[in-house]
């Protein structure tokens, strides 16, 4: 209020601190007022918030110091790691170059391998063809060899064949017969030879058979002797076995007899015990029957006694 202004002024002067100029005081008061107006908060609230923020700043300062230390430590650790990373990068590049070179070499080797495989397949085909030809030639040679072998088995040598040829040509010339007919006559004569030869072969076979029979007979004689020897051995073994078995049977029989005797004696003991029990039971039953009889006698005696008492009473 304007009328109070003088009073306010004197009050402010009275309260004004000696070392605080009035202008600065008003300036500070104005700024405080502006501050309260702009924030729509009282001075106390602002002061409390200010203190809270100061405390938080102190706390954050501590954390920032700790983080700075950590950052410094990490920076120190990063340096050797960076140099190590550079070394590794260089090594990686070198290895990549090596891999590239090796890959190129492998590609070359692969193409070379394909060429070699093509050559190999060609050679394989040729080898197969050669083998087939070899087999064919071998079969032909074997056929010729077989013919020669058969001729050899017959006993015809090259000289004999030449002699046969000369013979056939001479016959042709001497007899003036066609060579074909000469050959027919020759083979006809050979047919007769076959019969004679067959007889001789039969004779020889029979002789051989007789010889084999004789051999077989001697073998059989030997075997018979061997069998007789084995028979004797077996008879001896059988005798031994029979003796052994009879001994075992005797032993088993004795053991069985002993066991049976033991069992019989055991059963006899049990029967004796049972008989003793039966006798005891019989005695008990006999005693019981005696007591029953005594009971009956007592009953009769009591009846007589009562009758007697009545009789004496009636006598009264």
């Amino acid at each position, binding site marked *: 209020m304007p009328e109070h202004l003088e009073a306010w002024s004197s009050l402010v002067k009275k309260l004004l601190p000696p070392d605080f100029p009035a202008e600065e005081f008003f300036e500070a008061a104005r700024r405080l007022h502006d501050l309260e107006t702009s924030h729509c908060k009282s001075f106390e609230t602002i002061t409390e918030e200010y203190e809270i923020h100061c405390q938080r700043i102190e706390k954050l300062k501590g954390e920032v110091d700790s983080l700075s230390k950590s950052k410094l430590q990490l920076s120190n650790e990063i340096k050797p790691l960076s140099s190590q990373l550079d070394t590794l990068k260089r090594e990686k590049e070198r290895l990549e170059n090596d891999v590239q070179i090796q890959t190129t070499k492998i590609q070359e080797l692969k193409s070379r391998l394909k060429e070699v495989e093509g050559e190999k397949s060609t050679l394989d085909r040729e080898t197969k063809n050669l083998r087939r030809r070899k087999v064919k030639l071998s079969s032909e040679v074997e056929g010729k060899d077989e013919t020669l072998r058969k001729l050899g088995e017959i006993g015809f040598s090259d000289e004999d064949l030449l002699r046969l040829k000369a013979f056939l040509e001479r016959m042709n010339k001497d007899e003036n017969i066609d060579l074909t007919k000469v050959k027919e006559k020759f083979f006809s004569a050979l047919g007769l030879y076959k019969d004679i030869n067959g007889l001789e072969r039969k004779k020889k076979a029979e002789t051989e058979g007789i010889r084999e029979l004789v051999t077989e007979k001697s073998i059989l004689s030997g075997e018979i002797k061997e069998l007789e020897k084995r028979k004797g051995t077996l008879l001896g073994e059988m005798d031994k076995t029979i003796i052994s078995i009879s001994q075992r049977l005797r032993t088993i029989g004795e053991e069985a007899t002993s066991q049976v005797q033991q069992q019989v004696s055991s059963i006899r003991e049990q029967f004796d015990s049972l008989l003793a029990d039966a006798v005891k*039971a019989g005695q008990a*039953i006999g005693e019981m029957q005696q007591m029953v009889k005594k*009971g009956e006698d007592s009953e009769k*005696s009591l009846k007589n006694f009562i009758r007697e008492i009545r009789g004496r009473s009636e006598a009264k």
Partner: protein
Amino acid sequence: MSQYTLNAILEHLRQELTLTEVKAREIGSRFEVLCRETESIKVDALQNYLEEQRKSVARDRGIASLIKDRKRVRDSVLVAAGSFILGGLLTRDKFRALTAGMSGFDGMVQGFGESKWCVLLGKKISVVQEEMISPQVTWITLTSFYRAMEELKKRALDGEKLGNLDDVISKLM
């Protein structure tokens, strides 16, 4: 038959025999007790007979006494009637009250005839008053007789044979 089966059969037979023996002995001992009790019943029968006779004689004597004294008859009847009424009130059972009253009257009559009793033991057995005994007969006081009979009863229960009536009398002598 295997050994096991035979053993089982023998064991079963043994058990049966043992059981039979035990049962037989048990039955025998029961019969023995029965015999002893039967013997002791002779004593009871004789005592019972004599007691009945004593009561009969006492009743006869009491009635005779009452006939002589009318006042006692009146008192007795009054006592019996009192018993009758009191019994009826207490039990609310008229028949029972009547029986109780008559029993009381009978006991009272017997009481009038009570005396010192003796037992005559001879061809006749009887209970008589002491003053009725003649010097020729064999007698014993009823109290002594009962005492002796109790002794005989104990002996009978212990297994002694009492025999017939003459044997009992001879044992009392």
